[in-house]
């Protein structure tokens, strides 16, 4: 039976939009980026590979929904993130936000400005040459709720709105998770920087007046530490 053009359009075949060859090539060109994100989300290289493979197969099946000319990477990343959340977090991302290491105020002890400055590499815009492995380890150590948003914001440079849409939560939640995640990350990196001798053994509080304003609660312990060292 001969199909009319109108019927061809109605029919799911032949497939419209991007060809499988073009799709495959474009998807594979994003492999490193996707694997990077998957690696930090799953914290395990073989799980990361499985997650990327699932993502590619799902994307291939849904490729008519992809509009050629738009951002393939962002589209793949959305599928990857959703797959990760659905598979690994059946209970959603809301759980251990209250409990967990973040509830411990000591995890974010006051770090003085000179100390902060010392962690930065004056020659570049980056941190002092900390090994990438250390930074990845520090990321892996922070709870998933926070890790996911830090990876999406800082690695994929997504906007708060894009992250909120992807995770299906309000922008305010994205901001607070991002803040907590980075705070934890910084405190882990700070510990590492001290261990490596990049910064001194005692936090140096550059401007006590400002420090008091920024961290009034912690000033008590700072004073007692200072008194003990004298």
């Amino acid at each position, binding site marked *: *039976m001969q199909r009319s053009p109108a019927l061809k359009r109605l029919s799911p075949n032949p497939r419209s939009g991007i060809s499988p060859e073009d799709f495959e090539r474009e998807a594979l060109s994003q492999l490193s*980026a996707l694997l990077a994100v998957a*690696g930090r989300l799953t914290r395990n290289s073989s799980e*990361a590979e499985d997650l990327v493979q699932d993502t590619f197969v799902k994307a291939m099946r849904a490729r008519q929904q992809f509009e050629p000319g738009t951002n393939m990477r962002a589209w793949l990343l959305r599928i990857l993130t959703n797959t990760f959340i659905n598979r690994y977090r059946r209970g959603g991302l809301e759980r251990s936000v209250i409990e967990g290491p973040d509830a411990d105020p000591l995890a974010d002890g006051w770090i003085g400005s000179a100390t902060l400055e010392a962690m930065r590499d004056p020659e570049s815009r980056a941190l002092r040459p900390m090994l990438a*492995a250390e*930074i*990845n380890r520090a990321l892996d150590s922070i709870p998933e709720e926070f890790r996911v948003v830090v990876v999406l914001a800082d690695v994929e440079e997504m906007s708060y709105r894009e992250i909120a849409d992807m995770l299906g939560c309000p922008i305010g939640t994205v*901001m607070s998770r*991002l803040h907590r995640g980075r705070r934890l990350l910084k405190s882990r*990196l700070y510990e590492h920087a001290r261990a490596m001798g990049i910064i001194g053994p005692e936090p140096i509080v550059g401007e006590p007046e400002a420090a008091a304003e920024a961290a009034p609660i912690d000033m008590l312990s700072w004073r007692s530490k200072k008194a003990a060292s004298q």
Partner: protein
Amino acid sequence: MSACRHLQPLLETFVDGELAAEKVVEVEQHLVDCTLCTSRVRLNEAVRLSTRQAVRSAAVPSAAFEQRLRAAFAAEREREIQAEEFLREPRGALPWRTIVPVAAAAAVTMAWAASTNESRGAHPNQDYAAANAMPLSPTANVDQLIEEFVNYHANSPAPEVTEPTLIQKLEPEVGMPVRLPSLSQYGARWEGASVVPVRNQRDQRAASLRYRVDGHRVTLYVYNSARYPLRATLEPRVVHNLPIYVGTRRGYSIAAQESRGVGYAIATDLDDRESAEIVASIH
């Protein structure tokens, strides 16, 4: 210094480039005078940049992985071609016409009506439009089979066979090799086997093997996956390097492994990760 207290909470948003324009001006003016906030901003930028570099540098796809992905793409395209051929089968043989039950969803019923009403001779293309516009057409019988697997699992009668050595007697009825996976690594206890008729397809049957795992009932089906590719509607997943197809229906999880025309599917109230794991262990 009260500017610090006021502006410090905004610094992170400022670094992210998400601060409202009028606040950006305020922060920038403050940064001119405040070395502490300037160093906070610089540290935030440095952490961002280093994180990005570190995460990206950690991911170098191996040649083997890239190979695996190419194979996965090839398999997916093969599946698509099969599905398209399925669609092109002569109309009289379209399985959905015979397998879709009368009380199916409205869309299906409408397509049914379009294909059986008297306008058929006058507007041959209309039939085709109905068949093609119906999104279920290549997968309706697969969905039906999944439904039957879940139903049978939920209300399974006493098994016909409880003697492991008699399992192979099911083969002529099922038309597939039927083996009894022990699933002992999951502490599974086999309870018996039966032949499950596939509704409206007198010549099609699947074997069901019933297990109990940790107090949960697990029904393993052996079926013709060339005729009923469950992979056409379930969600693909990789478990132990094997492609596994997973879904949930009415609170039960379904996981299938299909190779060389033989499919193994599990229906259970265990969660989908567990059922995918179990079905992936079958060789």
